[in-house]
C-alpha cells in the first residue's frame, strides 16, 4: 500500500475538508499555500480530497484528483495540480452555498465595509485584490465571493491569491512562500502580504477593467447592467436555477454597482477607498 501524507484540516466557506497525497512534498506545499484555510482537527464529516501522483514521468500529466472517493480528474500536470485542487475546493463550496449568492470576484474590506471586485477573467481582479491587501485592506477572498442576499454579509474564504507573473506584484511576492514552479501564475497566501478580514457587510460591487493608459475613474452601473454582467460572463453562477437568479437579482437591487477603469494600482486604490468611504 502506498504511503499517504496528510496536508491538514481546512475549511472553505464553512465546509470542512482535508487533503491527502502520496507525495510528502505536495502535502507540505498544500499546508503552506492553504495556510489561511487551516483549522483544527475535524471529524469524519470533512470532505477528503486525494491528490495522488500516478508515478508517470513528463510529458505525461502525472496527477489524479479524487473527491470523497469519486474520481474528478486523472491527468493533471505538475504546474497545475495545486490550482486545480483549489478549483475543486471552490467548487465544493459553491455546491453547498445554500441561500448565499456566489459572485465571481474578489472581496476586500476597508473601514468595516466590503467591496466585491467582479468581472471576467483577466480583468485585473486578483492583481487589484492583492494590491489592496498589501495596502492595508482586509482580505475576504479572491475569485469566489459568497454574499448573503438578505443580510448583505460577505463570508470570508481566505483562499490563496492567484498572482500573475510577470506583473506589478512581483516585488511584493518575491521571496514569499507560495506555489511558484516558475509558471506564469503563483498562489500566494493572503496573510503573507496583508490582513485577513472577518465576515463584513457589502458596500458595493465594482467591475474593474484594466486600461493601458487611462487615469483611474469610476462610474455608476445600473442594476440591470450589473446583473447582466454578473450572469452573462458566468452562466454557471446561477446555481439553483430560478431561485438562484432571484437571489442574485435581489442582491444587485440592494447594492450599488460601479465600473472601474484603472491603469495605476495606487490610483485605483485611492478611488476605491473614496468609494467605500461614502455612506449612503
Amino acid at each position, binding site marked *: 500500500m502506498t504511503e499517504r501524507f496528510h496536508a491538514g484540516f481546512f475549511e472553505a466557506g464553512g465546509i470542512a475538508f482535508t487533503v491527502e497525497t502520496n507525495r510528502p512534498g505536495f502535502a507540505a506545499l498544500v499546508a503552506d499555500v492553504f495556510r489561511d484555510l487551516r483549522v483544527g482537527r475535524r471529524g469524519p464529516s470533512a470532505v477528503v480530497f486525494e491528490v495522488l501522483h500516478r508515478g508517470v514521468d513528463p510529458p505525461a500529466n502525472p496527477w489524479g484528483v479524487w473527491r470523497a472517493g469519486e474520481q474528478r480528474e486523472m491527468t493533471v500536470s505538475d504546474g497545475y495540480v495545486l490550482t486545480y485542487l483549489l478549483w475543486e475546493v471552490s467548487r465544493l463550496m459553491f455546491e453547498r452555498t445554500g441561500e448565499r449568492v456566489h459572485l465571481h470576484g474578489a472581496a476586500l474590506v476597508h473601514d468595516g465595509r466590503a467591496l466585491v471586485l467582479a468581472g471576467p477573467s483577466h480583468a485585473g481582479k486578483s492583481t487589484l485584490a492583492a494590491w489592496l491587501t498589501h495596502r492595508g485592506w482586509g482580505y475576504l477572498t479572491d475569485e469566489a465571493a459568497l454574499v448573503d442576499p438578505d443580510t448583505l454579509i460577505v463570508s470570508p474564504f481566505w483562499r490563496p491569491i492567484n498572482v500573475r507573473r510577470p506583473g506589478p506584484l512581483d516585488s511584493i511576492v518575491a521571496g514569499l512562500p507560495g506555489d511558484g514552479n516558475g509558471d506564469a501564475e503563483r498562489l500566494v497566501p493572503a496573510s503573507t502580504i496583508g490582513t485577513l478580514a472577518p465576515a463584513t457587510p457589502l458596500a458595493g460591487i465594482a467591475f474593474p477593467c484594466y486600461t493601458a493608459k487611462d487615469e483611474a475613474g469610476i462610474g455608476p452601473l*445600473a*442594476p*440591470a*447592467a450589473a*446583473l*447582466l454582467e454578473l*450572469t*452573462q460572463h458566468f*452562466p*454557471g453562477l*446561477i446555481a439553483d*436555477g*430560478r431561485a438562484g*437568479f*432571484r437571489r442574485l*437579482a435581489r442582491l444587485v*437591487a440592494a447594492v450599488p454597482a460601479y465600473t472601474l477603469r484603472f491603469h495605476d494600482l495606487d490610483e485605483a486604490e485611492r478611488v476605491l477607498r473614496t468609494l467605500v468611504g461614502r455612506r449612503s
Partner: protein
Amino acid sequence: MNEHDHARPTRHPSIETALFGSEAVLYDERSGTVHHLNPSACAVWLLLDGRSIGDVVAGLAERTGLPRTEIGPDVLRAIADLDEAGLLEGEPASGS
C-alpha cells in the same frame, strides 16, 4: 384591425423576470441564458399575459399617448424578437 391582432403571445412560464425600473433582465431556466430588455421591449413584455396583441397595442397607446398605428409595428417587431428568442408561448406573432 390586422391579421395579428387576435394572437395571444404569452410569457413562457420558464422565464423569470427581474424588473429594475423600466428595464428587465430575463432568466430562462431551460437554458440558463439571460436576456436584457430595454424600456420599450420591457413595456411590451409586461403586457404579454395572455391578452391579444390588439389589446397590448391599445394598452401601450393609452399609456404613452401615441396613436396605435404608430406603435403597432414596433410592438409586433418586439414580440417577434421575443418569440425568436424562445421567450414566448402560445400563438406567435410571426409572419409580421
